[in-house]
Structures are given as structure tokens and as C-alpha cells.
């Protein structure tokens, strides 16, 4: 098919008509059937945010969200390489998912009520808990966001960030002057040059700015207040619950693996584990994969080929200078908690 297509469209542009396959014997999910017929998972990714979804200098996709898509491919095909990425902008992302251009949207997308309901999306897993915060210079001697009365604050327009900022200050009856600058780089430059007293964006972004963009990270403080909730997670189309299940449990399997201490390096040594939790996770017992219409060794494949949640976090996010924080497992005081895999 591909050979034929490339010959027909030798003029360099292809028409790919992804016709949803008939629901045959298999999975009971039109999306999974289409994915199997196509031979790869089509994943909507960011393309610009380091640590979450971006190609590296060799043109290979890297990031937490990207690795999540690889894990999905490992669950469906047993092969983490059977995934392709479509770069999506913030405006395009929901249409691309709704129209079937991508199977899953893993693009730092905040789970909100309106997106979950009126946009016809289905969220279920949260693979990164973020929230909006402030960065200030240590020399300003500010300890709390409440002390920012009368401050000039740099912010990027057109996002919930700008609205959250106004909401927070109105609720706390503090005055501030917003300096709205479109590009991230110029915002950072304005903050460093002293044009604004503080810069606000998601805490993960602040941490990476502090690590990568400031001449001396110790001169800058991220204030303790987190003024908004930004739970980021993968989304799928509403109406295909089976596929939504697979997406959800792929994330949970990676959490469970971390909790049980199963990593990509040691997963094979657990093959004969007597721990019933590990046996169920790795598909030795329970037949859990079959319940979702995929291979019983789905979680084994995810862990072996991609890793558990802690591993992909350390590989992608930690180098940016972002601490694990609330994204630790619940057993370590974080928010990452998965329902039992049984």
C-alpha cells in the first residue's frame, strides 16, 4: 500500500485517507482497530516544549508526553516504535483529535470540565500536575505572592495564565501592573532586565527558566504560592471507551510499576516473582490485557521498552531542573495514585 501510494503521489504530497476499519472480531474499539490496520499510533504532540514534547538535535522526539505515546504503542503492538507524531499548535489540537487526525492528544493539555464535556474529549489520566506560580529576584526579598502589592508582572497573553493572574490578584485585593509580552524569550529577557518584578507561568516552566536562562539560578526564587491547578494529561475522543481505557491504564501501569519497584532494567528479573501484584501487572496471571482487548503482557512491554513513570520523569523532566514535587507517588507524599490493577 505504502509503495503504491508513494509512486502515485510522486509529486511529493500524499493523501492519506485513514478509513476506520470495520469492527472485526478483535478489540471492540474502532480506534484500536484503525490503529492496528494502520500499523501505528498517531499521537498529537507539542513540538516546542522541552521535557514534554520536542524533537532533539537529531530529530528524534523526546519528552514525557512523547514517551507516554510510545508506551501506548507498546501496549497495543508490543512495539514502542510503532508510533508517529503530529506537531499540533494550541489552536489545532482539539480539532485534530475530533476529526480523527490523531488517536490521542498528549500535548500538555489541562483537564478542565468544559474540555471534558462540551469539546467531546475524554480525559482520564494525569501524567503531570502543574500549577501557575511566580519567580522573583532573591534581592527583592519577597517571601510570598501576597507581598507583590503594586508589582509589575510579566505574563504571556492568550493563555489561562493571564486570566489566573487577574483572578488571583482580584481575589486577594492586591494591585499589580501586567506587562504582556507575546514571546517566552522576550518575557524572560524583560524579567532579567528588571522591566518587571516578577514573571508568572506554570511552575514547571519557571523551574526550567531558572535552571537554563538565568546567569545564576540561586539569585531567583520561585514563590511558594501555586495560584491555579493545571492537571496535564492525555485526551482521546469521547465515545470510544475501550480506547480511553487503554490510554488510562497505560498511565496507571507505569505508576504501578514504579510503586512496585519494577523498572525497564529489572523487569525480566521479576518474571518469576511471587508477588501477586507483580504477577498481575506483568501478565503472568489475571488475563488483564485480554479484558482491554490487548496482549496480556501489555504492561511488561511498556515497562521493558519505555520504563515506569519515575524513569521517564527522570529521563525527560529532571534535566530541566524541575523537581518531582507533587508528581511523586502517593507513597512518597505526592499526588500520583493509581487504582489497583486487578
Amino acid at each position, binding site marked *: 500500500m505504502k509503495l503504491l501510494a*508513494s509512486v502515485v503521489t510522486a509529486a511529493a*504530497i500524499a493523501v492519506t485517507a485513514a478509513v476506520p476499519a470495520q469492527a472485526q472480531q478483535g478489540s471492540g474499539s474502532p480506534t484500536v482497530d484503525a490503529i492496528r490496520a494502520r500499523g501505528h499510533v498517531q499521537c498529537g504532540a507539542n513540538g516546542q516544549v522541552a*521535557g514534554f514534547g520536542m*524533537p532533539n538535535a537529531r*530529530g528524534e522526539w523526546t519528552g514525557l508526553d512523547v514517551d507516554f505515546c510510545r508506551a501506548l504503542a507498546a501496549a497495543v503492538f508490543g512495539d514502542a516504535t510503532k508510533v508517529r507524531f503530529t506537531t499540533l499548535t494550541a489552536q489545532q489540537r482539539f480539532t*485534530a483529535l475530533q476529526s480523527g487526525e490523531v488517536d490521542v492528544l498528549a500535548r500538555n493539555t489541562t483537564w478542565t470540565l468544559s474540555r471534558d464535556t462540551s469539546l467531546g474529549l475524554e480525559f482520564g489520566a494525569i501524567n503531570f500536575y502543574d500549577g501557575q506560580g511566580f519567580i522573583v529576584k532573591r534581592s527583592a526579598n519577597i517571601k510570598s505572592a501576597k507581598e507583590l502589592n503594586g508589582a509589575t508582572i510579566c505574563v504571556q497573553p492568550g493563555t489561562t495564565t493571564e486570566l489566573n493572574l487577574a483572578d488571583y490578584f482580584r481575589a486577594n485585593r492586591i494591585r499589580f501592573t501586567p506587562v504582556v509580552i507575546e514571546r517566552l524569550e522576550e518575557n524572560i529577557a524583560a524579567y532579567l532586565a528588571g522591566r518587571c518584578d516578577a514573571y508568572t507561568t506554570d511552575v514547571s516552566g519557571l523551574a526550567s527558566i531558572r535552571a537554563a536562562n538565568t546567569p545564576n539560578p540561586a539569585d531567583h526564587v520561585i514563590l511558594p504560592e501555586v495560584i491555579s491547578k493545571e492537571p496535564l494529561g492525555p485526551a482521546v475522543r469521547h465515545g470510544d471507551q475501550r480506547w480511553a481505557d487503554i490510554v488510562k491504564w497505560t498511565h496507571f501501569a507505569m505508576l504501578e510499576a514504579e510503586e512496585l519497584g519494577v523498572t525497564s532494567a529489572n523487569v525480566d528479573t521479576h518474571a518469576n516473582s511471587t508477588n501477586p501484584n507483580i504477577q498481575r501487572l506483568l501478565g503472568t496471571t489475571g488475563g488483564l490485557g485480554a479484558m482491554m482487548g490487548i496482549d496480556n503482557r501489555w504492561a511488561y512491554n511498556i515497562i521493558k521498552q519505555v520504563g515506569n513513570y519515575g524513569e521517564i520523569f527522570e529521563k525527560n523532566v529532571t534535566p530541566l531542573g524541575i523537581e518531582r514535587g507533587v508528581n511523586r507517588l502517593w507513597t512518597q507524599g505526592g499526588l500520583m495514585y493509581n487504582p489497583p490493577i486487578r
Partner: protein
Amino acid sequence: MAGIPATADLRPPVSQIKALDWLRANLFSSWANTALTLVVGYVIVRTLMGFIPWGVFNAVWTGSADECKAAKGVGACWAFFPANWRFILFATFPYEEHWRPALASVTFVFLYVFSAIRANWNARLVYVWAGGLALIGVLMFGGVFGLSFVATERWGGLVLTLILATFGIALAFPLAILLALGRRSHMPAVKTLCVAFIELIRGVPLISVLFMASVMFPLFLPEGVTFDKLLRAQVGIIFFASAYLAEVVRGGLQALPKGQYEAADALGLSYWQAMRMIVLPQALRMVIPPMVNTFIGLFKDTSLVLIIGLLDVLNAAKTAAAQPEWRGYGPEVYFGISLMYFVFCFAMSKYSQQVEVEFNRHKHR
């Protein structure tokens, strides 16, 4: 008085004009000009005094991101380009297969140069283009001759810019001629259709057209049926360019004296014969400058595809500059990329001037 010939138009032999005279004539001919020269000169010198130490003496030409970090603020980080050139040129194309887009880009440049030589303007040109495009298609898609298949979402960098611009220009041009002829047609249906198309497309910015193609259009299709994102963007660009070009061509058609049309009719030529042999050759020759203007604009406009997430050469450079270790080198990145755009656009402009001179030689006989 009457017997003395006017001498004001005669200029001394070139060898007698000295640099000082040139300066006096061109830069210091009046108080106003002298003041202007001094002000502009001051601005230029100040800019260079700022740029040269930063861009040349203190710049980091090779090395790692750490060396750039050390020179931050005092010197430019040109080392960004040696470290990231492969990503800028080929973006997410599989790393081991980069020779394929490289060869495709070279093929594009060969096609441009080959077509620029007037001796090649014959039937052979069609075959060369067909062969060249087939080669580019095979290189980019793969899937035959043992090349691995590469989907369009992995295409990017310079070759994507060249694809969008070349197909944009090559396909918009014939479409524009048809639209321009249709707009001047006496058939009401054809005329209305062409006017509506041109005015609709010309009435909105390219960004809206691209947005329409990439965000709205998929919603009109039955669920599960999708067209390639690159193809949608390409069609959007072709439509947009053709609407503008059509108006340029119409300008040429209207500037042609009516006698030419009547003469063609008098010879008993059919409509298409008259257009092909009499009208279009003259009309198009007249509008070479505005046509090239549109081409150059289109070439630069292809960078707008970044808003729909395609990694053209500008977006690839910006993505490379978003890597944590290479952050904060915006000026260098934009400078380098604008230099590349300048080379392409300046070549186009120079070439068009030459073509214009050759085509209008009959006027200077």
C-alpha cells in the same frame, strides 16, 4: 544663442570623475543632503560599532553550548549553527536518512538553475522537471528501491520550505492565468466564479486560509477521513498565491492594446490560440516585476505554516533554539535564517531583472 548646442546633458569621461566628485554630487550636493548623509552615516557607524564586536570579535564560532554561555551578552553564539544545522535543514527526518532530503534539496536547486538558463526553454524542460520531481518524491517518501517509507509528518526544514514554495509557485501560476482569463470572460457563470474565488481568497490573510485548511476543513469531512496536513497547507498556499497572481496577470491582460486582441480575431485564431500565441506572451512579459514580487512574497510566506505546526526551516530553527541548552540565542537564530531567506530572494530578484531586460530588448532597438 540659438547656434550653441546644449551641453548640459554631456558628461565628462568616466575616468575624470573622482571619488570626491562622486561624493559631492551624490551625498553632499546641498545642505539638506549633507545633513541627511551625516545622520545616516552616524546611525550606520553606531550600528556597526555595536554589531561587529558582538557578531565578529567576541563571537563564539564553534564549540558547545557551554562556551556560548560563557560569552553570553558580549559575543554572538554562531556555534548554534554548526551544532544544529542538521536539524534546521532536515528537522525530524530520520537521522540516518538525512542524505535523502539533502539530495532532494540539491535536486530542487538544480531544477531552479536549469530552468533559469534560457537555452533550456524547450520541451526538454518538461521532462527534466517531471524526472526531478519524481526523484524528489521517491527520495522523500521512500518505500521503493529499498528506501524506508517516511511519512510527511516527519518532513521538515529547508526541503519543506522548498517544497511548499516550489509547488506553490508552479501550481499557482497556471491556476492564476485561468482565473485571470476567467475574470475577463464574457460568460457570466465563469466570470462570477472567478471573481468570487479571487475576492474571497484575497480578502483574508494567509494565516486564515491556513487555519481554515488545517482546523476547519477536517471538521467538514466524515469522521475518520483525513487529508494529509502538509497537503492541506500546500493547497491553501496555492489558492492564496493564485488569487494574487491572477490579479497581476489581469493587469497585464488589460494593459495590452485592444488592437492585439482584434488582430488575433482577424487572423481567425480560436480563443485559446489567440491567448497562447498573441495575448499571453505579451501580457506576461509586461508583468514580470509584479509577478516576481508575488513569488518572493510567497516564498517568505511559507514560513507562516509554523502556526499550523509544520516544521519549515524557520520553525525548525526556532525549535532547535528551544532546546534547554541552546535557549536565549534568538537574535543569532533569526539573523542566520534571514540571511538564508535573503540569499534565495535576492537570487530570484536578480534573475528576474535579467529576464526582464532580455524580454524587453525589442523596445530598445
